[in-house]
């Protein structure tokens, strides 16, 4: 069985040395636990400290948050959350920034993955990063200047009044013409608004660029105005396919911050539902992938098998998709003997049917040749970009939150982390296929070992300004919620979904590949935008860029890097 502590102490010398070095650089260690360190650094020492931390093996950036704490202690703060997989250790680096002109040195040269986080902090919180010229990233073009929505001086109602779409501006950039653009010559991924510019020479993709954030819903700000027990239901609606991971992650963050002792049975129920969600999500992805490859028979059968899992989810929780059973301190619905028996029956059936189906589907010659050796992502790039989930595991990086930072009931079960080293679309597909079987096995073990007892903590008190992290291995990769508690609702809530981390890898996969492989390559990270998708092909040779007004709108992103 997997043991966290023994593993940890073997390697802690390296970590101790690094922490000591960091201390020598002028950083103050605020909190030190076996699996968790908090370091406080002044802004001029930040670069040296991060350079020292990056010397650790397998270190990666899990998330970064800017927080407005002027009401509490008079400054803005940045929190960098690093993970060291092999040591099962989380390091939070905190730096204070002055109230009047918050600015920090950029880390883009040291940690490549920090790119989007810095852009977002600049856009939503007004933090400047020295040495980087940042433009609007998340907010729309006609958003008023110097209004940073996540700062505490703006309420939701103020923001609604402030933002009025400027039609004159839309005319100026010829955005009205953009409406009549036909949806690209081909249809890439999963029917959600994403926007990839593929620069094509002949049939080959020369370069690619991603533009996103068209459906930013301001969920973090909304959550800061809701009560603790209402937020899980909002969190569950962040993603249309894997919502439960978000509500679990949010609850874990609060439980972690306030040290709430969740009953063991609740942990087991959460893990069971999480694994059922992984099964149905992977089956959905397999169906969509086969559909993109033109093998619609496979799509139908994958979704037919998935349907049993959806009905099972409804039986266990009361709803097919947005399960709504998580509350802070436990779960709301119990699992009885009858349900356990039905669950085991369904799992047996799904395992049998899926095995025969996937053998057939992956032996179709067209499917095989479309998946093999396309969308290559080398291991080095995967490590540099701090990728997570099947995308990283398909490139030989054995990163899995269930194993690296165990949560819920995962320390009670044994399972393998599926790793393939080829880094092509086939590797990522096989990771998901094997994970379905692994998940079925995990659910069986959990159902077998589920302990008796209560399923939720009755009462708990909120203590303001405590920091908590909740992370869950979603079907797509690691979801991490960073949370600072307030009195009745979260003070700062930061959600990082796996696609946020994985999308920067897509241009690398697309570079120098066939145009026909682009749909499956984009889909291979299992992207999670939301709603209709748009694609645009610009042929440099023919100079047809001028005919595409959407390109004008995306200018800000082209020069923003």
């Amino acid at each position, binding site marked *: 069985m997997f043991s966290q502590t023994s593993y940890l102490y073997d390697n802690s010398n390296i970590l101790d040395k690094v922490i000591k070095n960091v201390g020598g650089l002028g950083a103050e260690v605020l909190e030190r636990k076996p699996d968790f360190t908090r370091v406080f650094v002044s802004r001029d020492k930040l670069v040296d400290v991060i350079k020292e931390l990056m010397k650790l093996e397998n270190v990666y950036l899990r998330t970064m948050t800017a927080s407005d704490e002027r009401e509490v202690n008079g400054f803005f703060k940045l929190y960098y959350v690093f993970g060291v997989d092999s040591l099962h250790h989380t390091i939070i680096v905190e730096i204070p920034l002055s109230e009047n002109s918050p600015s920090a040195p950029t880390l883009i040269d040291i940690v490549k993955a920090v790119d989007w986080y810095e852009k977002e902090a600049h856009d939503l919180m007004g933090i400047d990063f020295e040495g980087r010229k940042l433009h609007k990233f998340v907010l729309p073009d006609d958003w008023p200047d110097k209004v940073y929505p996540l700062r505490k001086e703006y309420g939701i109602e103020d923001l609604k009044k402030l933002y009025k779409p400027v039609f004159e501006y839309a005319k100026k950039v010829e955005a009205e013409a953009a409406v009549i653009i036909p949806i690209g010559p081909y249809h890439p991924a999963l029917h959600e608004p994403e926007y990839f510019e593929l620069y094509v020479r002949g049939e080959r993709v020369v370069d690619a660029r991603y533009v996103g954030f068209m459906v930013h819903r301001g969920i973090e700000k909304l959550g800061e105005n*809701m*009560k603790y*027990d*209402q*937020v899980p*239901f*909002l969190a569950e609606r962040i993603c249309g396919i894997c919502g439960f991971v978000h509500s679990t992650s949010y609850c874990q963050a609060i439980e972690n911050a306030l040290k709430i002792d969740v009953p063991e049975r609740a942990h087991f129920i959460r893990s069971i539902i999480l694994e059922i969600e992984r099964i149905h999500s992977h089956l959905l992805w397999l169906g969509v992938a086969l559909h993109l490859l033109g093998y619609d*028979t*496979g799509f139908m*059968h994958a979704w*037919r098998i998935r*349907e049993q899992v959806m*009905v099972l989810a*409804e*039986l*266990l*929780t*009361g*709803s097919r998709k*947005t399960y*709504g059973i998580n509350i802070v301190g436990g779960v*709301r*619905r119990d699992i009885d003997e009858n349900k356990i028996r039905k669950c085991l029956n369904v799992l047996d059936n799904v395992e049998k049917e899926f095995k*025969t*189906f996937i*053998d*057939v*589907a992956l*032996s*179709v*010659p067209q499917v095989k040749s479309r998946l093999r050796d396309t969308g290559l992502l080398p291991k080095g790039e995967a490590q540099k970009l701090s990728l997570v989930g099947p995308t990283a595991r398909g490139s030989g990086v054995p990163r899995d939150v269930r194993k690296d930072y165990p949560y819920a009931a995962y320390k009670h079960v044994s399972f393998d982390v599926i790793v393939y080293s080829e880094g092509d679309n086939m590797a990522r597909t096989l990771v998901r296929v094997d994970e379905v079987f692994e998940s079925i096995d995990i659910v069986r073990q959990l159902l077998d070992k589920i302990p008796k007892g209560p399923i939720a903590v009755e009462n708990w008190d909120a203590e303001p300004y405590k920091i908590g992290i909740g992370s869950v291995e979603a079907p797509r990769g690691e979801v991490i919620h960073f949370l600072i508690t307030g009195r009745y609702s979260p003070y700062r809530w930061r959600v990082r979904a796996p696609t946020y981390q994985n999308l920067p890898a897509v241009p690398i996969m697309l570079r120098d590949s066939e145009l026909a492989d682009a749909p499956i390559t984009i889909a291979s990270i299992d992207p999670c935008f939301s709603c209709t998708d748009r694609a645009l092909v610009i042929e440099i040779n023919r100079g047809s860029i001028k005919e595409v007004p959407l390109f004008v709108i995306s200018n800000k992103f082209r020069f923003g890097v």
Partner: protein
Amino acid sequence: MVKFVKIIPIALKVGTVTRKYPFERPLITESFRGAIEVDPVKCTGCGACTRICPPKALSLIREGETLILRYFVGKCIFCGMCADICPEKAIAITKEFELASENLSELNVDVEHELKKCVKCGATFVSTKLLNKVRSQVEALPDDIAELCPNCRRLEILKRFTGGR
């Protein structure tokens, strides 16, 4: 042997799985959560459900001398938190989910309560049912103070303690 043709016997064995909804009943398991139903007899109009409701589908509206607990099903996310939190167990979760309508007002369900008037200043302050419930549970509550609004009550008690000075 071409392995991929093996899908044909699988497909033949399974047959058609698509259900002809809405002509056939959809499959709903026994734990399905649908729209809620408020029992007007049990409900006291305390408003606990309106405070927990995440999408704010439940709201308390004051119209003259009636207090309305309005359930707008168009916003409801079927989470059932209101049923869990209701102190009177007046809210039941049904299995109904086909609730579309051409008329927006049909999506509202109202439960009306009579409001109690303050005997001193005449302002309405709480539903009669909730006041009666509190009086049945708190024995030491004097009748003359119970029917005062919070503001008048504060003044009255202050007057008693200071002896009317």
